[in-house]
């Protein structure tokens, strides 16, 4: 099954994290993802939610909001992709991700593509 792994960072915990160690761990983690084969991808890292802009179009008029979609303690910060047999394997990959210590990893199965 294919899963998108959504990384949410706790801003406070991340601020206090030992950065050098974290980036070293991320280097190793991304290396492992790259080696894991087809269906795995390292994804992208996002700028902080302070840089976010949120857009809604209703009845033809555009509402522009300077800020993230949801103003919560944990902010969406990036993602990676995996292709594994089941949820337990996905949980193992979530535990491997260094960000799991400074926030949360949300595991979302990809909708299977229609054959038609």
């Amino acid at each position, binding site marked *: *099954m294919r*899963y998108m792994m959504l990384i949410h960072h706790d801003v406070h915990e991340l601020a206090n994290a030992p950065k050098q160690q974290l980036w070293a761990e991320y280097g190793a983690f991304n290396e492992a993802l790259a080696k894991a084969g087809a269906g795995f991808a390292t994804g992208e890292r996002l700028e902080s939610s302070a840089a976010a802009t949120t857009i809604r179009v209703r009845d033809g008029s555009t509402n522009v909001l300077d800020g993230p979609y949801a103003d919560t303690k944990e902010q969406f910060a990036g993602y990676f992709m995996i292709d594994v*047999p*089941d*949820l*337990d394997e*996905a*949980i193992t990959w979530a535990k491997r991700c260094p960000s799991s210590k400074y926030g949360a990893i949300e*595991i979302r*199965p990809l909708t*299977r*593509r*229609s*054959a*038609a």
Partner: protein
Amino acid sequence: MREPPAMADRVEHAHKAAERAARESYGRLIAFLAARTRDLAGAEDALADAFAAALRTWPERGVPANPDGWLLTAARHRQTDAARRRQTQAMGEEHLQLMAEEIKEASQMSDEIPDRRLALMFACAHPAIESGMRAPLILQTILGLTAEAIAAAFLLPPGTMGQRLVRAKARIRQAGTPFRVPDPDELPERLDAVLEAIYAAYSKAWAEIGDDGTTPFAEEAIWLGRLVVELLPEAPEAKGMLALILYTEARRAARRDSTGTYVPLDEQDIALWDEEQIQMAEALLRDANAAGPSGRYQIEAAIQSAHITRRVCGRDTRHAILALYDHLLALTGSPVAALNRAVARAAVDGPAAALLGMRPLASDKRMLVYQPYWAARGHLLAEAGHKAEAHEALTVAIGLSTDEAVTRYLLGKREALRAFE
């Protein structure tokens, strides 16, 4: 026109065979049908159709030599039909091919269908499933109980229980929850959830005892416990849990008097205890203790064993019970264990020491609405001679009670306080 007797016999024979298959093989068939697709709702529908087909065709054509194999093949055909109808969805073809292979496999299977019930139980008790829904899911998928029956025991409206079961099954399919016994390094933690679900089913049965002494799930929970012990013979905690259930079950007949009032363990008539169940529990506990480190269920079963030894053999096991509670408290850190330890301490050091030991619990918010806390407090205060406080605690305990038999017992206790004034 009446059916000729031969036909009536055949019908009866077919119905009995179908009933037997439903009782003995339901969970095994569901586990097998859902193992690959993870689609429990689909497997249940397919099996229900297969049973309906059996009731139609068996009376005419006779009961097949291998009823389970027949049902499995019929259910597989239903699943294939259903998959064909959804063919626009992805994996349709691949899926159909897999199923066709499995139908062939199933029809060639001469006797036993591989037992995947344990894997199914681990899927139902997966940490990704809401903890309160694990026991209901196991009861439905392994035993085939209806949402109505489960709802009654779990004190939920049947509609709500039905919806939650549907949602939990959809989650298993969509999230990709594995149907697999976890790896050895994860097994202890994950087995806990399975045992907890079975124990919860039993506890519901215990709390829901009716006036006629019948219970909805006691037998089913014991059956599930035996199944886990049988399928995972190397797991000591599974044996510990089954022993704990059997010790409790053995005392069922003694826990109410003729007026339906609750009878505490110390006042129970031991002639009413079920000797055979106690023996089985003792044997299981010995096996569990010999096999490995003690977990929560083993310790709790050992406490039950010590209580029974005390009553039956008249041996003083009070210190042993207190030591076991120390161990349990250190292991779980649960306030319930702390409460029970305080009560066990009263038997050794007297009520005043026990009340002192209970003091830290008073600041635990969960205890304020925990009925056994107030009941225990009431007893200890009464024993220590603090009548006014005892009266107050027993009154709260009565107010929090949801069991008529316990209410009656506590009212009697409170009345007795007055008698010595």
